[in-house]
């Protein structure tokens, strides 16, 4: 049984926000709600690092533990989801989450907090799969279509990996072994490794 996880490779992330845009577009997420965002450390300094952050679908999710109405559930694939019909918008999950994943719509005449919204790993919610009700409340259910989350599939540098934890861990391990490591090196060579053969030179070209 798959155990779905996200993994972000900070060496590859170029802060393009393609994942954020893909998520927004896929689920028609309202203004002010960001299920996914890119966080950059040491912005502007050589060697800056960016990672894409959303719900990490924790194995022992603190949001599930603190929810007073028990609206969270974990699917057999390890995806943490919630029932918006039960959510009372108390915000406990927001305080409990170390990643700031739970989001609350702020619109309304009195600045209503609204029902919590978060990354669903593109797995929708407890409404019938790919129904209009599911799309309206939780967004598209790509997992039921045999697809991975839009953010991971859209990532241009494949910094953000999504899928079965064992498989993506293998992909990442293989990548790290191929490219090597070194705190002083950063950029293209670190992310993608060095070419095994030097680029072909046109005849007569000066080296």
């Amino acid at each position: 049984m798959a155990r779905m996880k996200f993994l972000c490779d900070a060496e590859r992330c170029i802060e393009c926000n393609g994942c954020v845009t893909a998520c927004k577009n896929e689920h028609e997420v309202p203004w002010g709600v960001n299920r996914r965002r890119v966080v950059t450390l040491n912005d502007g300094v050589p060697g800056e690092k960016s990672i894409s952050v959303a719900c990490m679908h924790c194995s022992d999710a603190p949001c599930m533990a603190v929810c007073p109405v028990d609206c969270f559930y974990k699917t057999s694939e390890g995806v943490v989801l919630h029932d918006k019909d039960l959510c009372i918008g108390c915000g406990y999950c927001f305080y409990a989450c170390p990643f700031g994943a739970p989001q609350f719509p702020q619109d309304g005449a009195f600045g209503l907090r609204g029902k919590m919204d978060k990354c669903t790993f593109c797995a929708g919610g407890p409404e019938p799969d790919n129904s209009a009700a599911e799309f309206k409340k939780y967004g598209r259910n790509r997992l039921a279509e045999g697809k991975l989350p839009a953010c991971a599939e859209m990532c241009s540098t494949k910094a953000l990996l999504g899928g079965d934890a064992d498989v993506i861990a293998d992909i990442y391990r293989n990548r790290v072994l191929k490219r090597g490591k070194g705190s002083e090196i950063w950029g293209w060579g670190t992310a993608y490794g060095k070419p095994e053969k030097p680029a072909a030179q046109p005849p007569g070209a000066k080296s």
Partner: protein
Amino acid sequence: MTTGKSVSALAFAGALALVLAGCGDKPMIYKQGQYQGKPDSKPWDNEQFKGSQVEWEKAIKTRTQGQDEYSRAVASAK
């Protein structure tokens, strides 16, 4: 005198135990199966996969492997 000392020592020990008891905290462990909402269907229970978990897992695995450009490059070179 000895009795008085032992009584005060006993009282001190009791008070210490009472004070330290306030430092204790039972760990809050989430218990599975507390969910109060609607039941959710499996991602393979639809027309596309016709209830076949194996087919669904195969589709997901193919997609997941598609994220590995090293294996993609090897496959395209063959």
